[in-house]
């Protein structure tokens, strides 16, 4: 299962954080900083899976944006790797442009809504890109009219 999803920029600033297991607010900052440090210090030749404490991190870099997903041991790492790509493609489709860390920040609530259509309580709920965006597009249309 997915424990959390983080999006950070190259300087380690959190652009989005979503936890699916209870993590005390006071501990989150430390966890995020540590996880980010872990991923940012990895070199190109190293694989995208990091053993971290008693779980694993799967991370991908898109230009200046790092997406880090914390998973439990039983998850298929390669599958989560694909999931991240899927997520990014959905964001690209919705924002009609390649997503940067800035764009995410400015539309934080929207990105959360999209993420909620993909992952619910740590499990994947939908992977089809059109179906993920249907509710958002419908509501956007409703609010516009």
């Amino acid at each position, binding site marked *: 299962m997915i424990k959390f999803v983080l999006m950070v920029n190259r300087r380690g600033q959190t652009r989005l954080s979503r936890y699916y297991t209870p993590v005390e607010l006071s501990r989150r900052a430390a966890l995020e900083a540590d996880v980010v440090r872990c991923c940012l210090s990895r070199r190109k030749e190293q694989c995208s899976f990091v053993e971290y404490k008693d779980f694993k991190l799967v991370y991908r870099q898109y230009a200046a944006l790092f997406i880090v997903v914390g998973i439990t041991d039983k998850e298929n790492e*390669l599958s989560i790797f694909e999931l991240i790509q899927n997520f990014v493609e959905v964001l690209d489709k919705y924002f009609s442009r390649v997503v940067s860390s800035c764009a995410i920040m400015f539309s934080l609530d929207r990105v959360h809504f999209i993420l909620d259509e993909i992952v619910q309580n740590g499990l994947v709920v939908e992977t089809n890109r059109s179906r993920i965006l249907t509710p958002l597009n419908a509501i956007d249309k409703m609010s516009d009219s």
Partner: protein
Amino acid sequence: PLLRELIRTIRTARTQAEEREMIQKECAAIRSSFREEDNTYRCRNVAKLLYMHMLGYPAHFGQLECLKLIASQKFTDKRIGYLGAMLLLDERQDVHLLMTNCIKNDLNHSTQYVQGLALCTLGCMGSSEMCRDLAGEVEKLLKTSNSYLRKKAALCAVHVIRKVPELMEMFLPATKNLLSEKNHGVLHTSVVLLTEMCERSPDMLSHFRKLVPQLVRILKNLIMSGYSPEHDVSGISDPFLQVRILRLLRILGRSDDDSSEAMNDILAQVATNTETSKNVGNAILYETVLTIMDIKSESGLRVLAINILGRFLLNNDKNIRYVALTSLLKTVQTDHNAVQRHRSTIVDCLKDLDVSIKRRAMELSFALVNGNNIRGMMKELLYFLDSCDPEFKADCASGVFLAFTLKTIWLCPLCHFSFLQAGSYVRDDSVPNLIQLITNSVEMHAYTVQRLYKALLDDISQQPLVQVASWCIGEYGDLLVSGQCEEEEPIQVTEDEVLDVLEGLLVSNLSTPVTRGYSLTAIMKLSTRFSSVNRIKKVVSIYGSSIDVELQQRAVERIMKISLIDVALPLPGGPAPAPAPSVPTSQPTFLLDGISSQPLFNDIAAAGENLFDSLCLLSFLFQVNGANIFEWFILFYSTGIPPMTAYNKNGLKIDFTFERANPNPNIAVITIHASNSTEADMTDFVFQAAVPKTFQLQLLSPSSNVVPALNQGTVTQVIRVLNPQKQQLRMRVKLTYTHKGSAFQDLSEVNNFPPQSWQ
């Protein structure tokens, strides 16, 4: 201001302090807006609060506001309100419970997106009470025809089950036709729900096994169907669903032969037909391999799976190499031979740049070491140990040592590296183990002793290394001096140089008493191999009267033992040995001339495991009745049947040791060892034995009929007892001997035979 304006403002802050100031100002404004119960701006303010919360600033004062938003009729309000609840609230807040009613109403809302929000929020953070209250609603939605809601309800049900396991039964009816759904979203989450239920309850697991054919069909359709734009990811149809189904199949097939058989074909199909050029394909293959290895698959399928992993190892993508090594590590014990075929690829991964890949390759390498590949593996692992990062060295040294002591026979360069580089990690029992293994690797003796000798020249501080090296030199010093090494350039060293080194150990402050004992023994043993016997005699006599009592004792004991071995020890199945020459007790003199202990040691080593533990142990540690115990231990370790004392009276002690006669397990071979602790010899010694009718007994001739005084030797005799009915062994013994001029006779019952001797 809107959220984006706030963000822009905050980004202009140049220091943390400046940012904090801005945030505080904004928070104050938001707080007063909340106080004014301003509906218009509530939504926007909470959105801003969520952003500030993400930056790490406290936002708890917005919790109640989220609730108000949830209760609003506007969808945009509800949406932010629910998001806020998911981000800011958890079970521990009281506010949390207040949501229950709202969620209940929204689960029945007319707009599906509102229902969706409620399901999502409940599924993310609903408490046990909330779940109990609302489970019925979730169950209803699980049966709806609206696929959007159905898929969310399925995951919400997973959360309910996790929180309140007793409610699992309640969802059972709704699962009936979940798999007949066409919508992949519903299919996917249904498989997840079924997986959760099967993992939690063995009853559910047996119940759902009947779904295997249906799952197999769905999976088949996914692979066989042509291009489907709706589900396509890099040319593969819904890989995420395929992975999920494979995982459920794994759980269903585990420890069930029928289910495993039913999925055999589809697994083979997926394994062979999946396109591997993109990562998606490999993700599916990976899951397939995991499933094949976990269920009761036929061997052909298992080999297929391991070969897939082998191919993964050659993939350029490091992620794929990583998962391959992880999986191989899990299967190496059960499918050892299949994994062995990929050994060279695994060993190549030792040179990988990724730390976790290296580590896994290292662990796998340890697991793969066996008698056939030891030379090659050892070269690679030693190179790795030499050149690896410090964080690896300790684990590598211990792992290498463990792998080799447990499985192989050739250790010597290892001694050098592993001891030197991981000196403090070497355990106490490693020295005798090492010695035994060196002994067994006959063709390596010359190389071994040379390398160890060189190691001693370098460094005499690592005690385990010094002990092993001393032992080797004592044993194979002749090979060292005659330069017989083939594996590397033989060194030129004289007997005197070798003795210099060993004597150096005796006097060094770095040497512990145990080490000194080893080096003294080595020196003594060399008296039969070197020609400079006089020098050796001098050294030993110095230490024989050394003020170091322990050392002195050892010197004496050692001499006695070595001289007695050839004499008293009956080798398993061998003929009774010749009588011993008498040994004076006051002054240790040299009886080592002409006695070669090497063949004896080799035989002993061949006789059983852990022999050398005891050999070395005994050489230095035991106090009384040396020879007897010595022999017992040797035979004990070769058969595993403990020795026993059959008779002990008036200074005459008779011990029994046991072996099994190989072709016939009904025959117990007992060797008696008679020793005499009085000051006078017992002459005309005759041992006789009788057994109950169901047994048959054969007594072979004794080694002698004089039991020497003061435990200076033993008389041995072999008894063979046939015990076809495997009855408890009992024996009556009759002893006659002459002692100090008088004749003695005694009858005794022996009943304390260990069960292993007759069972």
